[in-house]
């Protein structure tokens, strides 16, 4: 029986003596994808940051491949966990290849250079994200979608067991959002992604964790968790599920308008995001 890649037990995080997360427990097997959803301020980003040791947790335990991450050095953690966040503002102008090569830095000896294996991994990550033709380009000349692909390629160059995504699709248009999420569907790669788009979360994830004010409101299969009733309770919006022609399901959201006006029933589809 394969051991879970990630086990979180009764996790509690406080920042400046304010409880941000409490009682968070879940487990993920190799290759599983978890979407973390919830309103702004519900603790999504803090949960992601706790998983790579960027914020300390006060209670509970995080185990990675059976090993507790407390006391593990940043370097050895980075050999197993990679992170893609929202577009990183760059004060210094890297080339595409230069940025992706930094993904190997957790593996390089303090004074040594890259091995042929390191270079092979970087080439592969560039190729996977279709960045090979852009490898010499400066990041400043790329579009938001291309830059996000570069950050994902850097994360893949870390050859992680666990990939964390913190609202990675925020600045992307619909197509690039879908492409990015599709790109991390890789055999054996366990992914935890904080997402705003409930439809994307529902399509992409094996499991959905709904956070509300730092606690788990629901955890399970997308269709079980993202029910209209629960979304209405947590996000305070009205939800109308639509059945798609291909048998899929999409959710349409409406603001908490207590005095519905004529146009409300004709909300354009792009308002649903």
């Amino acid at each position, binding site marked *: 029986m394969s051991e879970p890649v990630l086990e979180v037990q009764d996790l509690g995080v406080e920042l400046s003596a304010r409880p941000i997360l409490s009682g968070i427990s879940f487990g993920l097997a190799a290759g599983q994808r978890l979407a973390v959803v919830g309103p702004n301020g519900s603790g999504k980003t803090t949960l992601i*940051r706790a998983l*790579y*040791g*960027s914020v300390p947790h006060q209670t509970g335990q995080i185990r990675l491949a059976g090993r507790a991450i407390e006391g593990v*050095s*940043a*370097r*050895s*953690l*980075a*050999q197993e*966990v*990679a*992170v893609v*966040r929202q577009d*990183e*503002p*760059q*004060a*210094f*102008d*890297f*080339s595409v290849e*230069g940025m992706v090569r*930094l*993904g190997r*830095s*957790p593996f*390089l000896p*303090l*004074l040594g250079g890259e091995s042929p294996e390191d270079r092979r991994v970087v080439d592969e990550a560039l190729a996977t994200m279709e960045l090979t033709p852009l490898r*010499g*380009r*400066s990041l*400043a*000349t790329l579009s938001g979608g291309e830059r996000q692909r570069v950050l994902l390629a850097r994360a893949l160059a*870390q050859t992680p067991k666990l990939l964390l995504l913190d609202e990675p699709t925020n600045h992307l248009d619909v197509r690039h959002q879908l492409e990015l999420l599709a790109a991390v569907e890789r055999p054996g790669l366990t992914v935890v992604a904080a997402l705003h788009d409930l439809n994307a979360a529902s399509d992409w994830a094996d499991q959905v964790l709904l956070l509300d004010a730092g606690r788990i409101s629901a955890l399970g299969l997308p269709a079980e968790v993202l029910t209209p009733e629960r979304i209405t309770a947590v996000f305070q919006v009205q939800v109308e599920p639509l059945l798609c022609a291909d048998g899929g399901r999409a959710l349409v959201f409406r603001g908490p308008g207590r005095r519905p006006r004529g146009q409300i029933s004709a909300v354009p589809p792009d308002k649903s995001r």
Partner: protein
Amino acid sequence: MFSVTTSAGLGRYGLVLLLGGLAFVAGLVISLSLGAVSLSFGEVWAALWGGGDGTARTIVLELRGPRTLGAALVGGALAVVGAVLQAVMRNPLADPYVLGVSSGASVGASLAVVLGASSLWPAATLAFGTALLSVALVYRIARVGHTAPPLRLLLAGIAVSSFSTALTSLLLYFVPEATAVRGVLFWLLGGLSGSSWATLLPTMVLVIPPLLILFGLSRVQTVLLLGDEAARSLGVDVRQARGWLIGLSALVAGGLVAFAGAIGFVGLIVPHALRPFTGPEHGRLLPAAFLYGAALMLWMDTAARMLLAPEELPVGILCGLLGAPFFLLLLSRRGVSDE
């Protein structure tokens, strides 16, 4: 940004190093031969090998030799420390002078003179202490959460810098003796005219080891350029790395200030001008920065000797005159925002 593409191939980087090397060697030659007494290249060459005229030998070996090596070390090390501090602060406008490290070090060095120290050691030790204190203070004041935004950092640097300069001036006020006044003024202005083997050798002992460690830690510096969260996710213990890099930088800056006073802007200009050609990776940037910083300082110091000959201009004044406009240019080009 100066250039759009940064395809820093090895060929291009090799060219950057080659040009820097040529400027450096030319700087060595002019620094050894030009001055109150000008010597021909042949005379310098003969003197270096212990031959030729006795006076020329004294000038080259005892006067200009340590000054030339000192200028190269000061310029090169300032450029390297500037690049390191820019990475640590994640701010392309950082350097030991702008951040108040140099003026902080001046306070310690001046204090040592006022207390009657006659060798470089106590001055350098005190300079290191006050340099560290200044940079910690600047960072504390400027910090918002986990980062220090450019504008806040500059303002904090200005505040701490003026405070340190005022302190140094105050020391000057309390010390009437002409020699001590000269000593304290020297640290305020920055210059290489007092260089001798007796001050250069301890400076080398103090400055070169931490400088080599900074070269060794270049990859960590590159990762820090990405910001704290990204650096953490790439395996860097940010607090620890930042502490080490700031401490080593203050050690280098303290030694340099004790030797040559507070010389500004070299640490800012050189890494900035080089990045478009080397790329931001410190493994490439630091060697080039050392070479170009050393070359620049050799040329500047020779110019400072020649401009008002037979009087000498402290090179710190010349650096300030040329560096400050460059700094303003950078400010306006980047449109520094308090993001």
